[in-house]
């Protein structure tokens, strides 16, 4: 079956521009996560959606970052007024649910480069 799909796979943009990153989770997965992975670093949690509950935004690094999940499926991560330190790989994952200790299934990420 189809896995988690992310687009674009690569994005190069100028400092100060806004970017939108898209994630299509596995069908039927109620939980969706966004992470950031910088070179040589671990995965940094950004935001978590579970069903219709309010998202856990505790990992967002600044108010320039926001995310939406429409219809309990597709999610968009938006970064406004991008800065060079935003350059990283942004990974999306989905799972059947959090409370049961379900493993997350990841997409291949969007590699974001800010010039």
């Amino acid at each position: 079956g189809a896995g988690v799909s992310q687009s674009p796979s690569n994005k190069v943009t100028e400092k100060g521009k806004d970017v939108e990153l898209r994630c299509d989770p596995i069908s039927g997965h109620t939980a969706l996560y966004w992470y950031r992975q910088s070179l040589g670093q671990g995965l940094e949690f950004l935001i978590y959606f579970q069903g219709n509950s309010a998202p856990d935004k505790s990992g967002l690094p600044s108010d320039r970052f926001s995310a939406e999940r429409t219809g309990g499926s597709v999610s968009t991560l938006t970064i406004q007024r991008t800065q060079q330190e935003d350059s990283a790989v942004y990974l999306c994952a989905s799972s059947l649910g959090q409370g049961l200790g379900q493993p997350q299934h990841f997409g291949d990420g969007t590699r974001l480069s800010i010039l």
Partner: protein
Amino acid sequence: EDQVTQSPEALRLQEGESSSLNCSYTVSGLRGLFWYRQDPGKGPEFLFTLYSAGEEKEKERLKATLTKKESFLHITAPKPEDSATYLCALNRDDKIIFGKGTRLHILP
């Protein structure tokens, strides 16, 4: 504070040379420990979930074990295609905490 520490950071082995990767953790209310494999340019790929001390899981040349304070990923007679970064992660309540990973390189 909940923590996940993986060691070593990097490991080079000859093909066929068995070894173990370590994941030490401090967490209250553990609800699962995960192992993932990540290849360059790819997202992490799920390998195992362990829920309680004493539990073991196996897949091909990999075996994961769990105690109350650490988990090991044992690699038996590895092949070059086992080269990757191996990530450990903890499920605590509604948070997943990832370690920084061990970069494993298997030389032919």
